[in-house]
């Protein structure tokens, strides 16, 4: 790859040269912009790639880092669910009966009263956050539910990212009928409100499952909401990626690559993709937050994670009927959801400010 600017990792000599001369008008050169700003601040940026510069900026954003750390704590606590379940609560997530009893202040108490009202938080190992209507430990179920919510959120975002980038690259690079067809399909998907499309697919597939050739997914599988969410968000990322590719493909470094005999695949993946890296990173964090929210919404509406599996959405749904007599059943998973999405959004904003200071990236619904 000769004189093309590969933007992100590692920085090419030309990129460095451009970065050293901010007067040059390479508008999409993020590295140049960042480097220019960094230079203005008196730092030595000649040897820094845009990625390193972005990381440096991110490190300076303490708020974003704090919320990033909070997200890691939430993930870690969900991953530690079996430890809590086995060593602290001594209860499996599905274990428990309404007639089970617990000793509180030396007194044996039913975990669900005769009037069917479950106990609230005990702040002790067993039933730390109280019981649900079936006499199950809310804390254990919350942690296990979190695993599903986070797993679906992160993996759905990953799948969306992979597909959206591929679609955006192909459509933007080839233009013509490929672009026209892709854009039409994306526009049709975009035209459906996220929740409506999610509920429609979720309800339809939850009953019969999904079968396409050798691929077969059972009705109640967690894979279904994961794939549905991944599918729904593809246009939300593919369209901006396509837009960037359309612009990038006209740049000189692409011309140069082409002149040197590089084929479309090579140009897309070696020249264009690295230039999209910061956009992808920023989008990914926002996508995770949105995917977690959508999973919760779909599960709340019965079109996401199917029982007996749990997620924060299903926990909120099953707690709603007890919102007056046992508010902890909805408040606790709701709070976890708020914290996770808040953490991801603040961190995502930090990432965007660090990697894409012009803030072109937005999740639009």
């Amino acid at each position, binding site marked *: 790859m000769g004189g093309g600017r590969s933007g992100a990792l590692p920085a090419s000599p030309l990129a460095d040269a451009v970065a050293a001369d901010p007067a040059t008008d390479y508008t999409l050169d993020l590295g140049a912009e960042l480097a220019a700003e960094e230079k203005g601040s008196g730092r030595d940026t000649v040897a820094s790639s845009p990625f390193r510069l972005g990381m440096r900026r991110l490190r300076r954003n303490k708020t974003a880092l704090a919320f990033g750390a909070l997200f890691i704590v939430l993930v870690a606590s969900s991953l530690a669910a079996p430890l809590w379940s086995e060593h602290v609560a001594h209860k499996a997530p*599905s*274990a*428990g*009966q*309404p*007639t089970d009893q617990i000793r509180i202040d030396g007194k044996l108490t039913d975990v*669900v009263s*005769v*009037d*069917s*009202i479950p106990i609230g938080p005990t702040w002790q190992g067993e039933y730390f956050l109280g019981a649900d*209507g*079936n*006499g199950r430990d809310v804390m254990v179920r919350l942690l296990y539910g979190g695993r599903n919510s986070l797993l679906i959120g992160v993996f759905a975002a990953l799948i969306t990212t992979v597909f959206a980038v591929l679609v955006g690259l192909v459509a933007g690079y080839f233009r013509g009928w490929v672009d026209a067809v892709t854009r039409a399909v994306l526009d049709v998907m975009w035209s459906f409100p996220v929740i409506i499309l999610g509920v429609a697919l979720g309800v339809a597939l*939850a*009953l019969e499952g999904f079968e396409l050739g050798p691929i077969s997914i059972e*009705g*109640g599988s967690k894979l279904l909401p994961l794939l549905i969410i991944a599918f729904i968000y593809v246009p939300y990322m593919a369209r901006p990626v396509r837009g960037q590719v359309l612009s990038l493909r006209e740049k000189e470094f692409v011309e140069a690559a082409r002149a040197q005999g590089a084929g479309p695949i090579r140009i897309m993946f070696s020249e264009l993709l690295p230039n999209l890296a910061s956009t992808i990173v920023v989008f990914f964090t926002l996508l995770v937050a949105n995917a977690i929210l959508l999973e919760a919404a779909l599960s709340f509406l*019965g079109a996401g994670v*199917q*029982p*007996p599996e749990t997620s924060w959405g299903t926990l909120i749904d099953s707690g709603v*009927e*007890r*919102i*007056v*007599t046992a508010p902890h059943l909805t408040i606790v998973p709701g709070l976890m959801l708020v914290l996770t999405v808040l953490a991801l959004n603040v961190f995502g904003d930090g990432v965007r400010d660090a990697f894409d200071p012009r803030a072109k990236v937005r999740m639009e619904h």
Partner: protein
Amino acid sequence: MRKFGKAFAALSAALLATGVLAACGSDDSDSGGGGGAGKTGGELKVAYSSQPDFLDPALSYTVDGWAAMWNVYLPPMGYKHEEGSTGSELAPMLAEDLPKVSEGGKVYSFTFKKGIKFSDGTPLKASDFEHTVKRVLNLESGGAFYYEKIEGTDEFAKAKDPAKADISGIETNDKTGEVTVTLSEPDGTFPAILGLNFSGVVPSSTPFKNQTSTPPPGTGAYKITSSEPNREFVLEKNTEFKPFEGVPEGKADKLTFEIIKSLSRAAQDTIRGRIDAMHDPPPADLQPTIESKYKDRYKSFTTQSTYYFFLNEKIAPFDDVKAREAVNVGIDKPALARLFGGGLFAPGCNFLPPGIPGYAKVDPCPWGDPNGKPDLEKAKALLEESDYNGETITVWGNSEDPTQKVTEAYAEMLKEIGFKAEPKIIDGGVYFATVGNEKTKAQTGFDNWFADFPSPANYMFLVNGKSIQPTNSQNHGNVDDPELTSKISELEQNPDPSSVADEWAAADKTVIDGAHGAPYGQRKLTAFTSERVDFENCALVHPLYQVDYGSLCLK
């Protein structure tokens, strides 16, 4: 009818719809007035949480539909507007008398009362009955199977024009009002079939189409004057109706049934008086408050229902009686009762519910006190004696409330006694068809039944070997005990179950002793009205149709 449904009523219309029988002689506050006293006139509003499946007597197969329509469409036979056992005895309605039975239970004849008119003024004719049955069959109603026993229904089904086709087994005489029905084989339950809501007579001019948006005229105390699906439907007094024994004139001039999806809103509206009666039980959150604060206008009653877990005797592990016994010993009935919310469940041992002829409380219960803790050690020992080889068993249930909770709790109970059990929750609309399909090979799962008519036969067919079919089987446990089957089949031929009550009780005992399923009790439902309603004198709870809205009156 299979379940007490709300949101899925429309979906379950085909076969698995809802139905509720209110109880008599139960141990809770079954007080409340009869239909005689109370002020007449005025307008009352009733809240339904969902639109009834149909407002067409040929099609409706839900408690929501039947509760509203039994005041509109009178069948030849039926049930008096009375509480307790009187209300569950079959009585002549449009017919002069109960049917005369001949030819060993194959031929049933009755004569319509003279001078009866539909709400549009058309006089009732005997041939209207044949048209009514034709509609049930032609529209492929969920209740069509009840009428397929009539001779000539196969030929009728093949006919191109149902209006011109004849059912050879039904002979009518418009001049005398006589009707003779010939069955292809004897059936002692046929008089009760003549009392089903499906038999609610409609005029011969009623089209062979679902009439929910323009309900046909009937002969009852009320007529449906407006129907806006999913919003409201209105019943107004039928001026052509003349009261007779057991069927009084309606109290309110107008009954508006509003569809209010949120139970919470409906309960708040009833508390404030915007709504006069709540058809569904209040939401679990508000139920304790309502029970304590508004006890002068709230009561619960035990329904004639049976809740049980089916245990598939055709396949492992429940082909082994020890495994079935282990389940019966190991299930925690008081724990299950708490899942129904606010004490709205009565744990029990029998398969037949109290109030049904043939019910004889099995005491002591061979599996332990239904209100006590289960003997887990005994259950574990029984399971060890069985051939259970430790494979994972699937526990079937649906996503409706409280079915899902019950299924999940049941799976945990099975785990506690040594099974490897995993719940499988599917949509309520397809649940009973799925577990009733032999290909599903459902090992065990949630089951319940609310009778279509108050007879032990309408419960015991659930464990009759003859009810096993490849699809849409109602015998989900594939219970095929030859002795039990022949006993049930013999008793079914007797049109008066009370006369063979002891034998029905013995059949019930056989179901329990053979652990043919794991019954755990009866559902309770509620009556809750606004302050305007004279709850003490006018809130009649019928054993078959629950709260009789025609009996509700203002103070």
